[in-house]
């Protein structure tokens, strides 16, 4: 049976037990205070930082691709596109790529921004630093229309990873991308560190990874929640 407590001027609070169930005890705090509602709690403890983002759709050429638990997995593709990962929900995003196989060593997997199902294939300016364990390193402006290349590897247990921070892709201004790729395969250790500006003042909702040979792996996208 509910217990109703009337306010001194108006309003009331009713304590009501569930209609059925076991006997439980609600213990009030031994201090003066105001009870928080569910909305208060959600607002107070909602996570800030990286929040996993799932694409609204994906597309792949060759092989297969699927989405599970906020991660896109693909196998034997020559390209895979993630649509609807960039939105107004977050300003900036982090993209994590891990490749576990490829049709050949040392081809580069490149990335392009994408909007409404179409890749943006121009207006990228890439300034990068590349080193590999043969002892040579280069620093150069790379006039190619992509971001974040990583070298493929067919080596079992090789490391092929890339992380990229994408700044404001869904805003109608230029997009900046900072990417770092690491490949350790049978040939060498390759490190590709690039800054990329995409000089188009348009909003993009996703990106495409593509390569001249097939590749296998996973991509996860996270939004930076303020």
């Amino acid at each position, binding site marked *: 049976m509910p217990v109703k407590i009337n306010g001194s001027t108006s309003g009331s609070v009713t304590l009501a037990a569930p209609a059925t169930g076991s006997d439980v005890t609600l213990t009030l705090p031994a201090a003066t205070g105001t009870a928080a509602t569910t909305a208060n709690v959600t607002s107070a403890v909602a996570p800030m930082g990286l929040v996993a983002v*799932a694409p609204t759709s994906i597309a792949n050429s060759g092989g297969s*691709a699927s989405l599970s638990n906020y991660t896109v997995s693909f196998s034997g593709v020559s390209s895979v596109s993630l649509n609807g990962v960039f939105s107004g929900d977050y300003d900036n995003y982090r993209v994590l790529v891990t490749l576990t196989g490829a049709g050949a060593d040392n081809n580069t997997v490149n990335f392009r921004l994408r909007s409404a199902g179409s890749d943006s294939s121009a207006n990228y300016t890439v300034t990068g630093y590349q080193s590999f364990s043969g002892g040579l390193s280069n620093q150069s402006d790379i006039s190619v229309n992509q971001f974040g290349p990583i070298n493929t590897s067919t080596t079992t247990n090789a490391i092929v990873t890339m992380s990229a921070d994408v700044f404001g892709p869904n805003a109608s201004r230029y997009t900046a991308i900072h990417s770092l790729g690491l490949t350790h395969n049978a040939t060498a250790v390759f490190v590709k560190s690039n800054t990329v500006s995409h000089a188009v003042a348009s909003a993009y909702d996703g990106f495409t990874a593509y390569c001249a040979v097939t590749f296998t792996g996973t991509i996860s996208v996270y939004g930076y929640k303020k």
Partner: protein
Amino acid sequence: MADVTEIDYTTDPPTVTERDFTDAERAQIAADAQAAVDAAAAAEAKAVADAAARAAVLERLGLTEDEVVVLLGGVS
């Protein structure tokens, strides 16, 4: 087999659509392939030019590759 498989996760269950490349996609793929060939050719040409320049310098100095390694403390 279609060129592209698209899965729309906004529907329940997800909608799978298969299609061939558009003309624009075919053109972009061809351009990417040509760019890769051009980049490889440019890299190879630069490597050849660098090797020739290095050999010319070594000849002028009268040094061998091994002697250069010794001079640089094992770093070549």
